[in-house]
């Protein structure tokens, strides 16, 4: 895991309760609190941290937290 990815993941975990105990490659579908509220929290995080407006389908298409982190503009 790169330092940038780890830092971004920790920041995301601090705002999205569903990810608090998750690993980077945990299937999102397996997390008990991965629901519509968690999707809103992810959208909110990306808006004020990365200035990116994610759509619902973009977030729901992600399978793991690592996929979510890849939506940040400067991580390939």
């Amino acid at each position, binding site marked *: 895991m790169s330092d940038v990815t780890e830092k971004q993941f920790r920041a995301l975990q601090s705002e999205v*309760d569903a990810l608090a105990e998750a690993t980077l490659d945990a299937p999102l579908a397996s997390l008990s*609190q991965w*629901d*519509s*509220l968690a*999707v*809103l*929290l992810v*959208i*909110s995080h990306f*808006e*004020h941290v990365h200035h990116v*407006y*994610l*759509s*619902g389908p973009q*977030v*729901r298409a992600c399978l793991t937290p690592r996929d979510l982190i890849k939506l940040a503009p400067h991580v390939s």
Partner: protein
Amino acid sequence: MHSLINHFRIAGLSVSTGSVRRSFIADGQANGIPMAQLERVAKTIGLRDRMVSTPDVTALDLCEDATRRLLSEMNLDASSIDAIIFVTQTPDHSQPNNASLLHGRLGLSKSTLAFDLAQGCAGWVTGLHQAALLCAHGGAGRVLLCAGDTLSHLTNKNDRAADPLFGDAGSATIVERTGQPNPMHFIFGADGKGASSIIVPAGGARQPASELTRIETADTSGNLHHAENLHLDGAEIFNFSLREIPPAIQSVMQHGGYTVASTDALILHQANKFIVESVALKVGFAKDKAPAGIVEKFGNQSSASIPCALIDALGDALSQKPLKLAGCGFGVGLSWGAFAGEVGPLILAPIQPYPASP
């Protein structure tokens, strides 16, 4: 669109809510949802109580009650009203409009202008703009602006994403022509490509109501709804709110020469606490200047939420002195309307349920 209107004032406000209190927590427990899950949503989104109306009470009834109480409080004769603007998306009939029905109920003069505006959460600001135009440029001395909906009647009770959000309410606002400039700036916008984010698919001319439109289907989260129900895409609505609303507020404040420091309060459509706080934070308003808790008491009241917030959060101050306010209504359409101007002192009738408890 930017618009500046002078020579009008908001003279009075009132709101009547549905009479049945519903609790997000109690309803969820009754449906077997774990308490921890309910508390998580309640805390984050701000879902607590909401006031809904019984099926026989419509937005017309709620607005009539709000109007009668306000006219009494202001000691005004209904015959002094030159125009009625009725903002609603839940009218009694497709024809005639609610404004004509209210005109008849109040027994107004035949020289009254009466029309409806089919607007939702941005509707009070849109209606205020029209009322202001009539006062400033249209020959009206006094306009009755009614705004309200009974959206709880449109949600499916087994749709946990939509049903817990909405309360029912009707508002009445008296707008008057004045000799003073009293400038108010408005910004309006629309994004019709997002129309499907908030929609009742059936029941209009495009897809008339039928047995077929009442067949329930389940979404991926297990929520049930049919084509005559109100459908919401929460993620898209939130995205829209963050993307479009803060710039509209900043623009209207800039036109009016307002800063966050010089503005007494930011009054937003009370969609839910999470959206209100997120938008206010992005514009730079601290929580004490951007009331967000009204929705926890009444639910999302559509076009009645801004007048309800004005009374609930600022009523004491507004009844005594002018306040520099900015605000924005936003939602179905998608559409939005922002305003910046001085409001008050004005006469308020208290927020009350209708029908009143025996």
